[in-house]
């Protein structure tokens, strides 16, 4: 159940009661990821709750999105960062990079 929603230009963040649900869309290139990394990590560190990235509308991820996921995992622990609605091309990125262990991909 959603308890709070933050809408910014780059992402929608909803507190679903114990887990953040973050909807991203389009190309997650370096510039964009650098803009969202700090505010997202701050939320995670303040709340100490996991996050689910909804990638249904994401067509491309840059290295900086992998870095964001790694930093998020460090902040909230292995298994508490999850990717959902992941396109096969992006799922493959995480497989090749060896990040499909600490980060759950559904």
């Amino acid at each position: 159940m959603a308890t709070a929603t933050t809408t910014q230009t780059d992402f929608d963040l909803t507190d679903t009661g114990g887990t953040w649900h973050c909807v991203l869309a389009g190309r997650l290139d370096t510039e964009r990821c650098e803009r969202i990394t700090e505010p997202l990590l701050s939320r995670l560190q303040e709340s100490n709750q996991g996050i689910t990235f909804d990638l249904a509308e994401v067509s491309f991820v840059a290295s900086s999105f992998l870095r964001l996921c790694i930093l998020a995992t460090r902040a909230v622990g292995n298994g508490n960062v999850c990717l959902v609605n992941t396109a096969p091309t992006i799922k493959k990125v995480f497989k090749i990079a060896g990040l499909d262990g600490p980060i759950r991909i559904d």
Partner: protein
Amino acid sequence: MSAVSVDEIMQRATAAAGIFSQYDQQQTDRIVESVYRAGFAARVRLARFAQEETGIGRWDHKVIKNVVATQFVYEDIRDLKTVGVIREDTDNGILEIAQPVGPILAIIPATNPTSTVMFKVLSALKTRNPVIVSPSRRATACTVEAARICYEAALDAGAPEDCVQWLADVSREQTQALMAHSGLALILATGATGLVHSAYSSGTPTLGVGPGNVPVFIDRSADVPFAVNEICASKLFDNGTICASEQAIVVERALADDVMAAFRQHGAYFLNPAESRQLEALVLDTSGHMSADIVGRPATDIAQRAGLAVPPDTTLLIAPLDGVGDDYPLSREILAPILAFYAVEGFDHAVNVCIDLNFYGGIGHTVSLFCNDEARITAFASLMNAGRIVVNMPSAQGAVGRMYNSLSPSLTLGCGTGGKNITTDNVTARHLINIQRVTRRREDRRFARFDLSLYLDEGVDADAIHEAFNRNY
């Protein structure tokens, strides 16, 4: 990247491999063009840098190597399909899809440092593979500079972060750990034999090279002044540092005086036996290997170090020898303006000497001949164990490809199983993809209508099976 651990390097490389997997052919080609243009623009600066840092060879010749590694390599791979579907054979129902191999470790030699970096980076990026450049200790700064130029150009064109990394200050143990790392997909090993063997021993698939010991046979059908001119153009190129350069001249005795006179016109100095022994003492180190101190040095410098009084305009030192092997140290590979010389009786004897030279440290690499007799060319070629048999051209430039023939331009020359390599090809981007084959059902109708129970009957021999299997009603 000195403070970075092997694991961090590999994490970055595998992340780059993941990101690269999303790129299409057009995006990939844009990156390759950007790297080519940047490398080509830096060809003179990098050549000077390499010569100054290593003291090996000539900067103006290293410019040509850099041109081969950029312009010629780019022309060779520019239109190559390396992403997605690369071939479709509808008749046979085969669809080929290219996939990157994964992170590549590129080992770079001191003899051709900047050119080898640019060649390997272009080849790796064309195939969407991240590459980790490992310099020779003797050429670290120029190698890193070449890698940095390539990386920045790649980033400018939208390449993934860390698609090019380099090792500036790592120990031998770290290099070996990197070679054996489970995340590494392939090693492109160009360098000294020991390093290539280490790569093979790591358990990671390796495209390596073997040492050369290139004989050049000047047949009586050859144009002697032309042949000598070409041999000098090759052996003197970058002071003899290309492993495909000639190491020994073999001629029929009837031609020997003409050949020697032609070489003298190019500034060659023929050593007497005592002078040859003086030179032997210099060119081999205490373990009997080629001394690194003479690699790529000018002939006059080598002569001076050996205590030989040669004319100041000497370009080449030539040692007439009677045999091949450990008792004749100058019959082995020497990457400097030094040649052995054999005057022999007839074609068969000449071929036998070339076989001896070919098998004395140069199996699988390159052999050369100057000849206008097609039957002799074929006979000679079929008796050699060499990936490249170059005919009527300078061996060094000929083996590297494109300038004098249609071989793919490459700075990694496969030497086949004789050289402990998996291929005799000139290694290119074509070797850096995994090809997946989608195969559609195309039944062999002979198999479908064949009575399979015949296979179970030991009384039916192969001829009977063959007849039944191929029966065309």
